[in-house]
């Protein structure tokens, strides 16, 4: 029930304090009522039951993905050596 879904901000409606987000092709409205930071079009956010909960840091996500990639490569190298 409460797993949050990563989505991308498509447009922002300041008057109603909402935004439209895209979740893998599905667009929907999400409230910004519990989100204080500045938000921009293109940001990745976590949506939970219709509310933006937080931003996803692209830097941290990218760093993790690169680390995983290195691990996979290291293991493949070991396999080749073996």
């Amino acid at each position, binding site marked *: 029930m409460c797993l949050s879904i990563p989505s991308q901000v498509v447009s922002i409606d300041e008057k109603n304090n909402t935004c439209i987000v895209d979740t893998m092709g599905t667009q929907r409205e999400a409230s910004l009522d519990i989100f204080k930071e500045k938000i921009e079009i293109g940001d990745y956010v976590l949506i939970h039951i219709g509310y933006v909960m937080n931003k996803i840091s692209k830097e941290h*996500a990218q760093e993790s993905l690169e680390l*995983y990639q290195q691990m996979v490569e290291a293991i493949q190298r070991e396999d080749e050596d073996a």
Partner: protein
Amino acid sequence: MKMLELKQLYQGFRDPKSILAWSEKIKQEAKDLKCKIRVMEVCGGHTHSIMKYGINQLIEEVFEFIHGPGCPVCIMPKNRINHAVLLAQEENVILATLGDMIRIPSSKGSLSDARSKGADVRFVYSPLDLLKIAKENPNKTVIYFAIGFETTTPMSAALLERVEREGIKNILFHINHVLVPPPMEAILQNQDVHIDAFIAPSHVSVIAGSKIYEPFVSKYRIPTVVAGFEPVDLLEGLWMIVQQVKHREARLENQYKRSVSFEGNLLAQEKIEHYFELRESFMWRGIGEIPYSALRLKEKFAQYDAERVYDLPYEVVKEPKGCICPQIISGVAKPLSCKLFGIVCKPTSPIGSCMVSSEGVCNAYFRYGNLL
């Protein structure tokens, strides 16, 4: 830095090669450990990732998974469900709630039974939907049966804020918001449960911050890692636990740095503070009464509180015969020890809440049973 695409966020953290690489790394790290690490995943979302991606099998020589109380649907005591049913049966009431709540049976039946007998019970995707329902039904009282951990509490507060600001007169709240650390503490005090480490849910900490676990980690000296729900996040979190166990440490760590900070979402916390206060005690299904483990509306918002507006009884309701949900939720038993599992009790005909909730433990065992 390269531009990150949403697709990578999904797939990168579920990549089978990375899953294998992490499990190899964990096994390597754990080579010298003498016994399995008994880790409790507090939230059913983690249980599902573990079973769905076969993580329990990949690293079975390192970890034994103990399933925790982490589902607001599973732990909802029957007397609260009875409240929901009673409220739904009131005249001119529309009762709205989230998730699998409407299917959980209680001694007065389930909300879905009440609906088939004519009550107006609605399942909403977001508490915001209540605003629309209330405006479309000005002559009815719309009651929000609010459930969930720290993750969903600020949304109830934000809804109430809108209700106040827009002067809406026909929305009431029945608050069942619960907190994650108190049941973790209660479980540790149970002599029959032995736990070496905790994997704590990231979504709770996105709102409340990883700080909520700090007092508990220093008091009980138990490794606790806040981890995301994607399989690779979870594996990284488990690897952090192996590191701590190996070095005999007991720290609070945060794997899900891409969205969780120590402080959490302060605006959300302010809103919770404004509207809610701790209940002296709350009954948890399977665990019993736990002091200061849930929230209610403050007295000054009594006019919005369905528990004060309606006269609702406090009853103690027994569990269905043979169902061992209470033991499962408190980490003492696993679904396979339940005699009803898969025979009488299935997702299509659930007996207890652990099978009803799509994130419940019995449901996960049933769904991914071939991976056991």
